[in-house]
């Protein structure tokens, strides 16, 4: 009993720092690692979310929750969180470092993608290499190619829900073939 009390008193002073203040956000966010990787640094296929902007992360989760964005599984999961919890999760992952996905890049496709990126004026919002300074615009550089492809295909699909913020994407991608989308995806994926 005595030793327990001692340990508790000791720890209260000296290890509280590691057991961070933002416990609530951490508690909500760490289970996401099972799919999105530890601290959101996905090791494969599923998008990297660690290091994206808080604004974008929060908007995305809310879009899934409100079903104005399509996802195979996130629309089901996002229903489980309040808007406040979503804000906390967004904050947590935005504070993590961005670690690019580990994937094989098709270099010739990436090159063709870069050309499209320039021609279509994607850089206007997404930056020269897929890193935007606009908080609402997601980072694409180093993201998983297949995920980027899915996302662009979803923007093209008139039967899929689309958020107001993402609506310009439908026009931007109009007329692009699947090959074009894949090329763009490889270009962004190849950037770090």
């Amino acid at each position, binding site marked *: 009993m005595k030793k327990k009390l001692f340990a508790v008193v000791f*720890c*209260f002073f000296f290890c509280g720092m590691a057991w961070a203040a933002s416990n609530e956000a951490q508690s909500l966010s760490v289970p996401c690692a099972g799919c999105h990787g530890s601290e959101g640094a996905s090791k494969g296929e599923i998008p990297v979310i660690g290091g994206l902007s808080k604004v974008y992360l929060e908007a995305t989760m809310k879009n899934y929750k409100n079903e104005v964005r399509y996802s195979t599984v996130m629309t089901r999961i996002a229903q489980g969180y309040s808007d406040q919890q979503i804000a906390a999760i967004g904050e947590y992952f935005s504070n993590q470092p961005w670690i690019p996905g580990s994937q094989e890049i098709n270099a010739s496709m990436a090159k063709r993608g870069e050309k499209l990126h320039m021609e279509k004026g994607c850089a206007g919002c997404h930056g020269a290499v897929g890193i935007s300074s606009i908080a609402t615009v997601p980072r694409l550089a180093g993201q998983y190619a297949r995920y980027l492809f899915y996302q662009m295909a979803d923007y093209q699909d008139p039967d899929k829900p689309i958020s107001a913020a993402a609506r310009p994407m439908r026009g931007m991608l109009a007329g692009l073939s699947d090959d074009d989308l894949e090329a763009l995806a490889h270009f962004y994926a190849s950037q770090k």
Partner: protein
Amino acid sequence: MRRISRRDFVKAVGLTSVAGAIGLPMISRSAGSTAQIVVVGGGYGGATAAKYLKRYVPNSDVVLIEKNTDYYSCVFSNEVLSGESSMESIKFTYEGLAKRTINVVHALATEIDPNKKQVKTSMGKAFNYDYCVLSPGVSFNWGVIEGYDEAAAEKMPHAWKAGPQTVLLRKQLESMKDGGVVMIVAPPNPYRCPAGPYERAAQIAHYLKYHKPRGKVIIMDSKHTFTKQTLFMDGYKKHYGDMIEWRSPVDGGKVIGVDVDAGTLITDSDEYKPAVANVIPPQRAGELALKVDLADDSGWCPVDQRTFESKKYDDIFVIGDAADAGEMGKSGYGASSHAKICAAAIAARITGIEQPEPSYLNTCYSLITPEHAISVAMVYKLNDKGTIVGVEGAGGTSPRYAPEWVREREANYARGWFKNMTSDAFG
């Protein structure tokens, strides 16, 4: 990761000498350690718990006791049966955890003394703990299916713990003649990985389709329904036609005994002699949990579902398949979710800072073919009775009617899920 500062170190050394005077067990406790935490069992639950405990309380001593040096994941082991994955691809080591200064001890934990607060091991060494996290997985209720015991499993593999049993079942499938029948005996609820037997049927059929096209898979079930049932049944039909048959107890699916020498499965009314018999027996908490009396009459371990502390003994926590975790099914993802909450609860106990409200999550994928996966997900919370319940309106399964690209995306994400879940636990 926070490093211990010089000031903390001086204080810590101060504590060590005082602690010695008041009789703290000194064995294995390093200078500056705030707590001795012993994690028993290195599966998804135990490995994740050890990692997150070290992360939340860096100046604690975390010992992980696990008898095997390699871990073979049950998740994705069905894909080894189909030949789509290799044993190597489901093998993980504890090197990543050792690098995080977790003391990984490869020994069998033989006993826990809740009074002395000590874990005894097969190598003779005992480990004192302030907190013990037990993630013992499941053990089998041998004999409930008459004649099916540990020895029988060498002829009729369960392959429900990945490793040599997986290899054995795969070999049996490989040496089976075309036209043979594979019978999978699915266990009664609750058991590890609710979707597992049904994914397995699909994976075996996937192998047969390309190698033994006249073969057949029959699932002999003691349950009347199962998880993602329509999604599985639709998937079976689409990809394997009549190759897979599911028999509920009404259709004579309940197996009550085996005759290992004759190679037969026995039901109330019939006796079958399949070419390959995969018998997945009824389950309960892992052996050590039973031995230490952590389980109740149900065979599973009652815990405070906020912290995963055992209801039977203070300072022992039970996570993963062995724990009664309310509405959560028994899965690797779930075990990892328990582990993180348990680590947070212990960290709160050590630091005196309040434990955050727990948030539980589960996401499970099943592969029907390499390009067709289905999923189930749920977000859980604690209700006011202290029971883990699904959040209303959240979660659920993949839609029943969906185009092929949806199944394909889920198959792609299933592979990412496996990579991330394993690297989160072992990396």
